[in-house]
């Protein structure tokens, strides 16, 4: 690098690098926020599961619990169905 270009580079801040850093942080945050939300299909999934179960057992809607647990490596779909008491 010549003396002149050395001065030229130091005179001014490299704003492109700043832009890149800010974008990387922002986008990482936005992606994390999004993946923390429950998936859009959850209500429909619950509905369909309820219909399938009702083919065999009569359950109330409140007895079916569908939940998504976010893990760092994988997510867990948790399904909790309380069956009516058997005599």
């Amino acid at each position: 690098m010549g003396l002149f270009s050395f001065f030229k580079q130091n005179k001014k801040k490299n704003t492109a690098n700043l832009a890149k850093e800010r974008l990387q942080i922002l986008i990482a945050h936005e992606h994390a926020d999004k993946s923390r939300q429950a998936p859009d299909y959850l209500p429909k999934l619950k509905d369909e599961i309820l219909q399938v179960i009702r083919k065999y057992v009569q359950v109330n809607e409140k007895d079916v619990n569908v939940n998504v647990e976010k893990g760092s490596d994988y997510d867990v779909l948790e399904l909790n169905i309380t069956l009516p008491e058997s005599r």
Partner: protein
Amino acid sequence: MSKVIVVTSGKGGVGKTTSSAAFASGLADRGHKTAVIDFDVGLRNLDLIMGVERRVVYDFVNVINGESTLKQALIKDKRVDNLYILPASQTRDKEALSKEGVASVINELKEDGFEYIVCDSPAGIEKGAFMALYFADEAIVVTNPEVSSVRDSDRILGILQSRSKAAEEGRSVKEHLLITRYSPDRVEDGDMLGMDDIVEILSVPLIGVIPESESVLQASNSGNPVILDKESKAGQAYMDVVSRFLGENVPLRFIKAEEKKGFFKKLFG
């Protein structure tokens, strides 16, 4: 087999319409029957960029509402064979585009043997942009080397992979990143995000880099898609995009800074 390609970005004014016009003209020029549809209801501009504004009789919404046939509304380009333009409506009714309506037009184009259907998306992430991307098999995400454009591209990529028809059916939309208005000199000076940085941030394969170029404005002034200006750098860069889209391996051009003139050259050169 026909393919639906959306040209989208989230942000406005980044070069979607310029790119749609160039890309569709390029595909048609290479012998593929191509239709380009303006989805910017209320703010149609594609007709102007394509230089067919005086030939608009019926539009996209007329076809959807059954006020005209698709054949009546499609404008056949006079410069390039195989190229047809479907202009947007000037109506202010944002609900004018229904999913069923858009689906029927796209299906009719497919039945008529169109190989490529290019959808020029409006800005934003509202109804119009959603309609433009919903039926897409592939997406060209137009991005400027600038923070808000890159962020908006990231958001539109999220929508493509979660809310498009392909996503609903468990397929994915094939993504291509198109960087436009690129100034290699400013990148070298550290004033502008470089193409490698943008690719790294968005992690989408790059289909091309279009330099900032006066020829784009000249092309729009005269109503000729810039790709027809075979002398211009922007036109050549768009031709490369079309080649890459068609599967050819073409190196990137116009991405290096012009050699800086030395002190003596500045004085005497």
